[in-house]
């Protein structure tokens, strides 16, 4: 299995496969379609940015991909296993092992220190505590946060918090990382740092799906999906662009100057 994956890097394996995915809310007269039949395949190693105005269904899509919500119709296959209508327990087990979440508001637990926050997904996958901390500590080192291990979240800056959150998303070595507006609460400098972290993670072979409003962030992505009214409007792939690190540097510098927040 592992060998075949390595050989087939040229023709990547799909991590996410969505077939005619539908999600609606309300009943009868008030029926609103959040997703009106989405067909989408995301391959291993892609960095997908999902764009679109508010209410276009991108968050619903992300929630379904993250198994926090289930579709009304259609099929969802995650890393080769059908994940359309799972029991809450199975969905939770998959979330603990195969999915990494990065939220706009970091969503760290204030009462836990950084190390415990990062190891949190591992506590739900029956990993021994010393192993949890070992893995978490290793990851924090790559994010240059090893000195902050025993800090509490309120002692860190926004950018640091989001790096902790990214470390947390990576700690269970997930099949896919789902990021919902990861820089939405950060200033431009921190945003740039976070995006370069995400790019770095992507370059190490992780699959990332990012939902964002900010068109500038899409420059980091290898694929841009634009959504509107629960439908995919456009789907563009830039396979080489993000792999080339020199291409993004001047762009990020521009974001830095343009954004005064």
């Amino acid at each position, binding site marked *: 299995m592992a060998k075949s994956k390595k050989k087939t890097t040229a023709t990547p394996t799909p991590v996410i496969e969505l077939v005619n995915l539908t999600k609606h809310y309300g009943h009868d007269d008030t029926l609103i379609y959040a997703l009106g039949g989405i067909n989408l395949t995301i391959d291993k190693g892609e960095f997908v940015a999902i764009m679109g105005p508010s209410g276009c269904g991108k968050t619903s899509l992300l929630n379904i991909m993250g198994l926090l919500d289930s579709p009304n119709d259609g099929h969802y296959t995650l890393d080769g296993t059908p994940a359309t209508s799972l029991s809450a*327990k199975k969905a*939770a087990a998959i979330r*603990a092992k195969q999915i990494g979440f990065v*939220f706009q508001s970091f969503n760290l637990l204030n*009462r836990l220190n950084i190390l415990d926050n990062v190891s949190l997904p591992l*506590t*739900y996958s029956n990993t021994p*505590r010393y192993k949890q901390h070992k893995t978490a500590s290793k990851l924090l080192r790559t994010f240059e946060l090893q000195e902050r291990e025993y800090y509490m979240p309120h002692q860190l800056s926004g950018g640091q918090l989001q790096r902790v959150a990214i470390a947390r998303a990576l700690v269970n070595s997930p099949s896919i990382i789902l990021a919902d507006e990861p820089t939405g609460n950060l200033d431009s400098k921190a945003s740039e740092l976070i995006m370069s972290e995400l790019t770095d993670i992507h370059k190490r072979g992780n699959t990332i799906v990012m939902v964002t409003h900010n068109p500038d962030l899409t420059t980091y992505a290898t694929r841009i999906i634009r959504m509107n009214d629960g439908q995919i409007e456009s789907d563009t792939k830039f396979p080489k662009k993000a792999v080339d690190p020199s291409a993004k540097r001047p762009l990020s510098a521009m974001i830095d100057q343009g954004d005064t927040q």
Partner: protein
Amino acid sequence: MIVPDYIRVAYASLGSTKVRTTLTTLGIIIGVMSITMVLALGEGAKQAVNQQVSKLDEGIIVAKPGAVDQRAALSRYNPFAISPTSTLTQRDSESIEKAKFIDMAAPIMFVSGTTERKSTETKELRSVNAPIIATTQGLEELLKIEMASGEFISNQTNRDTVVLGNQAAIDLIGTDQARGQEVKIKGRPHTVIGVTKPSGSPINLVGVHLDQSVFINLEDGTTYNQGIAQIQQIIMRTDDNSEQAAKKVDALLLENHDDERDFIVSEGESVANTSSAFYGILVALTATVAAISLIVGGIGIMNIMLVSVSERTREIGIRKALGATNSHVLLQFLIESLTMTFVGGVIGLSLAYIAAFFVASAFSFLPAFSWTIVGISMGMAILTGLVFGLYPAVKAARKDPINSLRQYE
């Protein structure tokens, strides 16, 4: 996630709201404390009765009026509450005394009334409402009453003499060296011929505090009751096998009573049963009241846990997004309430024994320590945590992760 993880999480979350946690746990502490105190004191009193009985000689048999009914124990315990016409008669007492298998016997008749004494120097009138026990000489030996001064009533002493319990002597005369003093029992003067030594315990098989009692001759007692002896107890001793002797006494009394079983003959351990049963009922009643305070504590737990669940909705959402199942969340919150009740239970139990020790020492017995009491108290505490923590925990577990993550923190 394993249990130590949950306990660590519970400790961290409870620790972050210290005042709230302390106050909630205090409710449990008070509840457990009251239950434990009631049980420990009740059991201690029971043991004191049994000790008193076991201090007496082998072969003690007691006959009391009334039918064999444990439920009536409460009313039977109080000698003054017994129907004015006791079913035991002087004839019963006499036939027992005559019986060959009985070594020694003494009837007890309670006379109600006040005992007064006018001081010869100050002319001050003191009166006590002491139990007046009309009996015979045998009681001294049967109950192992020791004399501080003088002698106990006997066949040789006349009906104008009285023996005072130690405390009764101090209350009336001011000293236990009261021989020769004059007291008035129900208005009639008696000469004090002896004072007992303090027994130190209010609990015994007779059911009244002997130190506070006044002893007169049975014959004297009957004069206060139109010459009829109303015998509330016959205490006897046998040299034979007490079980068999008790059966013989039973048969003897049954014959006297024309085959009507309106009396109880008990021996050995069961001599103390009446008073034990009394304490048992008393303890059960008080423990029920004490249990209510634990329920109140439990409601406190539920209240605080509900607040905690709604405050931590976002945390629940985060945990669920990161892979926590419903049962993970359920256990997390349940273990939090269980931690409070367990810690509250341990503290309550310890405080209860400290408090019970002081309370009991005022009544000159010790609170009983037993694993049953510890088990009952801790069991009740943990049960409270389980029962009152379940609903908030279920509520937490059922929260939808998406909506929970939206909650502003």
